[in-house]
């Protein structure tokens, strides 16, 4: 298995994508609902990360 390194942002993107996909598949009934949930969940992950990132940046100034 080749060794791999990821930045914090890349790791978060992959993790958010996988979590959104799995939760969408197991928690929703129709494909439309699953896609909608997956995209919304992924979007919220990104928004939260950027929000927390800015919060930490401003908190450490």
């Amino acid at each position, binding site marked *: 298995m*080749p060794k*791999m390194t990821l930045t914090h942002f890349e*790791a978060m993107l*992959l*993790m958010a994508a*996988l979590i959104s996909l799995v939760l969408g598949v197991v928690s929703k009934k129709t494909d439309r609902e699953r896609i909608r949930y997956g995209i919304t969940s992924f979007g919220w992950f990104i928004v939260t990360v950027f929000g927390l990132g800015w919060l930490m940046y401003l908190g450490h100034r």
Partner: protein
Amino acid sequence: MPEATLAQPDVPVSKWGPIVVLAWLLPGGGHVLLGRHVRGAILGGSVLIAFLLGLALRGSMFRPQTGDLLTTLIYCGGFLGNVSSGILYLIARWFGYDQPDMAGHSIDYGTKFLVIAGLFNILAMVDAYEIATKKKD
């Protein structure tokens, strides 16, 4: 007048037991056995990708350890998460994968990905159980 609840007939363990065991051992296998091939492929694929990412990032696997509450919770919970990956965990162990827990964000993410793979598989097992017992369509 209170609404009458419909008592659901119990589904025998022999019906859902093998499905849940297969779902644990082979991520997505329970769904395939139930004829839900696409669902099984998505869930199994997600478990596999998360696990392989964890290995590629050289994440460490937990060993059960007791002590104070937090130590017990982290190490036993982490071990449970790792073991839940089924055959992937067993193969990695059989091939001698034993990465020490070292400082570094990449290794740390790897450790999380390995646990998340197991947690995805627990969700897949519960999903397979609910489908097998007709609690879910």
